[in-house]
């Protein structure tokens, strides 16, 4: 394939909003190769045998067990999937690394956090920004699980405002070392790691700098006690104190002042991986919930027969399906973009960095959407278990608590919502994505007379696709006018940004789910996709409801008089169904299918 044609086919980051994607161009879980399926099987078997079989241990602050499981994961090669072969990793593509992250993370947030902190933010800064020597020295050890990594960005006074840290790095008199002094907080894996990625400020630099620091208690490094936490009880989280810790100058990561960029790019990957990490937890919770509902008798019938329970099961399945669809769609875009850049002669390191950065918007969207789906799913799963859900003897209680952290770390969901819209607006300003052209077109469309013809929606999912095209217009209308009105000041209108983010998120999730279903229906027949069609329709219906609510709120916040009236009319027109789906029937259909399977599995 020539570079040019590849270029045309791979959607750029954020472009989903202004370009129509064909279903053949999205990657779905059903497209996994035989080898990827085998990798997934192995990962599942590991999770079942080593994690699920012992989930209670993770509730007893058994940090040593988490570490033991991490070593076992290392033996199976599960820590080295993303590491290039040159550094004794497996050099697998981005989709494969997502797959492992997905299926290893479903049992307990404790292991999932340890795995994510090590393979993601603990290792990636070196593979992405390290010098050849740094990579040779550290990466093979991290890939095999001989060593574990941790990432020290957050400080007591620097959380979301990550560049505001006070940790200092001072060059020694002989110019051979930096002496690092400062306090880091909430550091995952601190209790058992061999290496820290530490961000510190040199002199009064505007931006922080990254360093690789080996964990040596004799070198001024002390740890706080394990934090007492709501969930992820066996994930080690401690403060780390650096007191004149000597770090050789060759351990600086990238250049002076480049730390904030490293931190942010490591987080881009972290975010999409976190979305993946929230998928299998949904599958498992839903599977446990449906098994329970099939067996638990009340009023002389299994509770699955109650509409109240069916509605929950259907919503849980629908969210999981949309999350899978969007996560793997974006993952493949990233993989293709990396391949494309490599084909253009860039180093793998550079290609990967730019490949992920390109989809930073999608990474933020996914982080928010999937972590919130997981939260809802664990909440409803617990509810289906009733009193037993509240009991620590069933895995619902811990799943519910463990889910909570995903909305906080790797950038809070508020920060990620703002980032998603902010980055999109910036891309538009830079001309990388043409938002203003389509936004103007939408404005003109609103002035014109709408067509009164009844469209032909006989083809499968055609009304849904038409609706998604119109939902994109809602975003363009709202965000376009807001940008015109506020310019760069838009960022200060946070409630408006948040509303716009919700519209954006719902569009991406709904579209991904519809495209996945369409693709599979075309190749395997509509009959095989009955439940998936229902889930895609239900997700979209819920998305439309959210978009109506958020759109209205956003429009009223900044537009007045005729402009407001016109935009509200546009909102109505763009969110209108010709044939309303009967969502009650859809939910029943979905729940019955999941109940019959007695588990969540759709690929």
């Amino acid at each position, binding site marked *: 394939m020539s570079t040019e044609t590849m270029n045309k086919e791979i959607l750029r980051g954020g472009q989903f909003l202004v370009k129509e994607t064909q279903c053949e161009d999205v990657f779905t879980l059903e497209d996994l190769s*035989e080898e990827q399926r*085998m*990798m997934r099987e192995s990962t599942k078997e590991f999770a079942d045998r080593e994690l699920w079989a012992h989930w209670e241990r993770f509730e007893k602050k058994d940090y040593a067990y988490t570490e033991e499981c991490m070593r076992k994961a290392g033996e199976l090669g599960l820590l080295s999937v993303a590491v290039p072969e040159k550094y004794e990793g497996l050099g697998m593509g981005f989709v494969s690394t997502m797959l492992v992250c997905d299926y290893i993370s479903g049992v307990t947030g404790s292991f999932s956090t340890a795995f994510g902190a090590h393979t993601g933010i603990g290792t990636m800064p070196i593979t992405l920004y390290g010098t050849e020597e740094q990579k040779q020295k550290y990466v093979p050890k991290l890939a095999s699980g001989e060593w574990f990594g941790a990432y020290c960005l957050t400080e007591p006074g620097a959380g979301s405002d990550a560049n505001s840290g006070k940790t200092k790095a001072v060059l020694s008199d002989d110019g051979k070392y930096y002496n690092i002094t400062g306090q880091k907080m909430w550091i995952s894996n601190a209790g058992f790691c061999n290496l820290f990625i530490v961000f510190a400020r040199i002199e009064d630099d505007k931006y922080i700098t990254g360093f690789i620091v080996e964990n040596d208690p004799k070198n001024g490094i002390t740890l706080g006690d394990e934090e007492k936490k709501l969930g992820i009880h066996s994930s080690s989280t401690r403060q780390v104190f650096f007191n004149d810790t000597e770090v050789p100058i060759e351990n600086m990561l990238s250049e002076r002042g480049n730390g904030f960029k490293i931190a942010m790019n490591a987080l881009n990957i972290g975010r999409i991986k976190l979305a993946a990490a929230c998928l299998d937890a949904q599958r498992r919770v839903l599977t446990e919930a449906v098994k329970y509902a099939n067996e638990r008798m009340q009023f002389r019938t299994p509770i699955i027969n109650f509409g109240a329970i069916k509605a929950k099961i259907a919503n849980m399945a629908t969210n999981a399906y949309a999350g899978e669809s969007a996560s793997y769609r974006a993952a493949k875009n990233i993989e293709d973009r990396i391949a494309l850049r490599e084909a253009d002669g860039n180093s793998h390191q550079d290609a990967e960095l730019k490949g992920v950065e390109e989809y930073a918007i999608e990474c933020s969207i996914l982080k928010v959407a999937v972590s919130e789906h997981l939260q809802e799913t664990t909440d409803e799963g617990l509810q289906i278990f009733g009193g037993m859900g509240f009991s620590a003897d069933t895995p619902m209680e811990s799943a519910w608590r463990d889910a909570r952290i995903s909305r906080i770390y790797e950038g809070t969901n508020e920060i990620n919502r703002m980032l998603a819209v902010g980055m999109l607006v910036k891309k538009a300003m830079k001309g990388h994505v043409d938002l203003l052209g389509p936004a103007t077109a939408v404005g003109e469309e609103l002035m014109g007379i709408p067509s009164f013809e009844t469209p032909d929606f006989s083809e499968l999912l055609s009304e849904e696709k038409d609706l998604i095209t119109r939902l994109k217009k809602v975003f363009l209308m709202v965000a376009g006018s807001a940008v015109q009105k506020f310019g760069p000041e838009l960022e200060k209108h946070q409630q408006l940004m948040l509303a716009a983010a919700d519209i954006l998120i719902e569009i991406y999730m709904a579209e991904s789910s519809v495209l996945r279903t369409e693709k599979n229906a075309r190749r395997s027949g509509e009959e095989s996709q009955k439940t998936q069609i229902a889930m895609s329709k239900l997700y979209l219906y819920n998305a439309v409801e959210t978009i109506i609510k958020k759109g209205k709120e956003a429009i009223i916040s900044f537009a007045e008089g005729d402009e407001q009236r016109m935009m509200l009319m546009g909102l109505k027109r763009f969110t209108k169904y010709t044939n309303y789906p009967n969502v009650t029937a859809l939910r029943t259909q979905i729940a019955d299918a999941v109940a019959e399977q007695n588990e969540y599995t759709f690929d």
Partner: protein
Amino acid sequence: MKILVCISNVPDTTSKINFTEDDTKFDTNGVQFVINPNDEFGLTRAMWFKEKQGATIHVVSVGEVSVEPTLRKALAIGADEAIRINTIPTDGLFVAQQLAEVVKNGQYDLIIAGRESIDYNGGMVPGILATLLDINFINTCIGLEIEGDAVTAIREIDGGKETLATTLPLVVGGQKGLVEESELRIPNMRGIMMARKKVLNVVEPTDSIRGTEDAKFEKPAPKGAVKLVDSDKIEELIDLLHNEAKVI
């Protein structure tokens, strides 16, 4: 030592069982296939001989291209080479005849098959295979040690164990006990990648007899609805047990 592990590709135990074509064929739609558990115990024991005694392991399966993922899984676990005999496996006699041909061509010292496959539970293949090859045979084998040509094997017998001494070449009908469940290997990521590079030979079947043919399958009748009787209505319960269930 050259070991051949015979692998049958069977539906996962949690699969929903249905039949098509007038109940004469198993419906593979939506069914996940795995290595027959009894064969996996054998393969895992073979891996022990490979690692401790330098044995070479070949795996063989009779089946169409759809069995290849299962063979590649065996390669990912650590087998050195795979052979697929390109035909639909029907009855035990047919399969054993096909396998015998591979054994004759490959000069194996030890042939491990499962005691039975968990799909049709025929349990005939290892016995017929040993007969066709005219070599020693140990069935329901739960322990296997080999020194040179000398074999010590443990067999499960009703309510106990029997230790046998024999010599190679040998056919073993293996099962759980050859290794324990906890010793079964999860294919590691590198093994999975290497499997792609290992040899998977496809050989055409030999002419052989198909002794039997599936005429019809039947599923057990589905369970009827459960009748609940209030605990204070013992009379009603006894009446139902007498007259409806007719069990007392």
